[in-house]
């Protein structure tokens, strides 16, 4: 969480807060905020606690206080990492996410630049169409897409996801990058055009270096969206070694075993941690991606 201390949003929302007395602030601000934070974080506490609890404490809630753990164990996590395909699933998830993100960033940069700066005939309409594409949810596309994936011979292949995920990412990234590109002054481009630079050179040498924060925002947000994606991965992948973490944890670990909870929660924890760590380094970028795409 170290990155969050570097947040440099100007705190001009102070306003008239100094008028409130401390007891009033405790009751109207701190207490409700504390309750909400506890509710928001409790599932993660519970997930982490279960992941390191020995099996006997999991099912014996009378001898031990279930809110704490006596003699924690790494058994569930080591079992996960050394006796299952979990490392493979993590690797799949990572590779698919990175590949889909890179592909959609490439396509989005070109599209956003064309819409904002080349302004070909109909650019505004295309921009609106891309925004509409943002509003098409995967739940209504997965059945026809499954038949299309099958027809292209991509069924049960990670490439299917690398090609399909950009449909979620491109509309969002394009819209976000359009906002960034609009803030870059025209004069820079005019100078370069007069000096004989091509559009491609302008994009690579002038626009992109200036839009790095936007690229990071779009990239981080895209990565988390890919990591999170479930319905396409569930529909298009079938063999165990090709699965992504969310699908694998749901389908491979869920059986009738009463002792499954330890490994299930360990799976959920290990699958979430990389994303949370990544997020903690780029909080500001992540938030600006999330809010920027909505505000445009």
């Amino acid at each position, binding site marked *: 969480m170290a990155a969050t201390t570097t947040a440099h949003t100007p705190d001009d929302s102070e306003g008239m807060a100094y008028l409130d007395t401390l007891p009033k602030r405790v009751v109207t601000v701190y207490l409700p905020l504390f309750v*909400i934070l506890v509710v928001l974080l409790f599932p993660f506490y519970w997930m982490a606690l279960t992941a390191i609890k020995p099996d006997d404490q999991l099912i014996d809630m009378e001898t031990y206080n279930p809110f704490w753990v006596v003699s924690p164990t790494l058994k569930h996590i080591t079992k996960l990492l050394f006796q299952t395909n979990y490392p493979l699933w993590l690797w799949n998830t990572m590779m698919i996410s990175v590949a889909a993100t890179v592909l959609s960033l490439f396509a989005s940069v070109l599209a956003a630049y064309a819409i904002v700066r080349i302004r070909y005939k109909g650019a505004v309409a295309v921009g609106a169409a891309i925004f509409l594409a943002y509003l098409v949810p995967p739940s209504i596309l997965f059945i*026809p897409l499954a038949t299309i994936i099958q027809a292209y011979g991509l069924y049960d292949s990670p490439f299917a996801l690398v090609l399909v995920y950009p449909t979620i990412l491109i509309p969002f990234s394009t819209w976000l990058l359009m906002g960034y590109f609009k803030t870059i002054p025209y004069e820079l481009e005019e100078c370069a055009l007069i000096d004989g630079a091509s559009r491609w050179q302008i994009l690579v040498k002038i626009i992109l270096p200036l839009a790095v924060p936007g690229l990071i925002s779009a990239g981080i947000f895209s990565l988390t969206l890919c990591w999170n994606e479930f319905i396409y991965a569930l529909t298009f992948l079938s063999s165990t070694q090709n699965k992504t973490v969310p699908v694998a944890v749901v389908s491979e670990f869920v059986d009738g075993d009463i002792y499954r909870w330890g490994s299930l929660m360990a799976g959920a924890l290990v699958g979430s941690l990389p994303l949370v760590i990544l997020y903690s380094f780029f909080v500001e970028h992540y938030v600006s991606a999330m809010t920027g795409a909505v505000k445009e």
Partner: protein
Amino acid sequence: MADIALARPAAAASTTGSAWSRLRTSRGWLGFWFMLPAAAILLLFLAYPLAKGIWLSLTDTRIGRGGNFVGIENYEWLWDDSVFWLSVFNTLVYTGFASVAKFGIGLYLALLLNKRLPFKALIRSIVLIPFVVPTVLSALAFWWIFDSQFSIISWSLRHLGLLDHNIDFLGDPTMARICVTFANIWRGVPFIAITLLAGLQTVSPSLYEAATIDGATPWQNFRHITLPLLTPIIAVVMTFSVLFTFTDFQLIWAMTRGGPVNATHLMATLSYQRGILSGNLGEGAAIATAMVPFLIFAIGISWFGLQNRKWQTG
């Protein structure tokens, strides 16, 4: 592509109006080349499947077997199917309750976070964690929290003396609906709170100062300053929220798979079950297509919200 092959670079050098130089420099063609990757992916994997889904819903296609055109038979079949109507009802109730609660709690949390707080940036980044963690994985944590035998909630209530038996959270239809709705609210509140907070931060504090000097109460401040200025963002955020709650799949699939006795089946989960698991692609596509009118309705409302803003700013 044929144009490029025909136009020789040498010819381009001599005549400025040649096909090659037009392709390289004309605004329209340049735009075309730049749009190509994004357009290809979106047309191939978004627009085409969207159309194909509607076509599939008019056929009796099954997995591994091409179908014949059957007109609106799938829809007629669904019209008389009580499970389908139950899923529509569930989806509407789920979306309704979850969206209202998410909006209420989200706005409240945004207002809290907009106050002067120590460690504000840290708190804000913690609030967003439920949104960052993959939904399925946090849904599994909820599944464990709502376990019929080892639920921590049942345990706490029993030890507080409020209860003498375990609650069957996900086994009882009403209880299961409440649980999945709660999990959805839990997951959606951070997104709404943080985006509304971004909107709140653009409201100048001097407006509140001026209104307070004129004798406005805190409620009046909220009603006549905060809410009107926030309306455009609320419209967009709630559209997204309604859209993605309505088409929710993964939360339900990880927690209940539509059970008990179809009580938590949403249209998306029913579509997956009929379309992929049972192999009736046509019927599954029909259920998915039946969601489209609702989605258009939601987008329409948001559009009117945005129109309002234009009208307000004159």
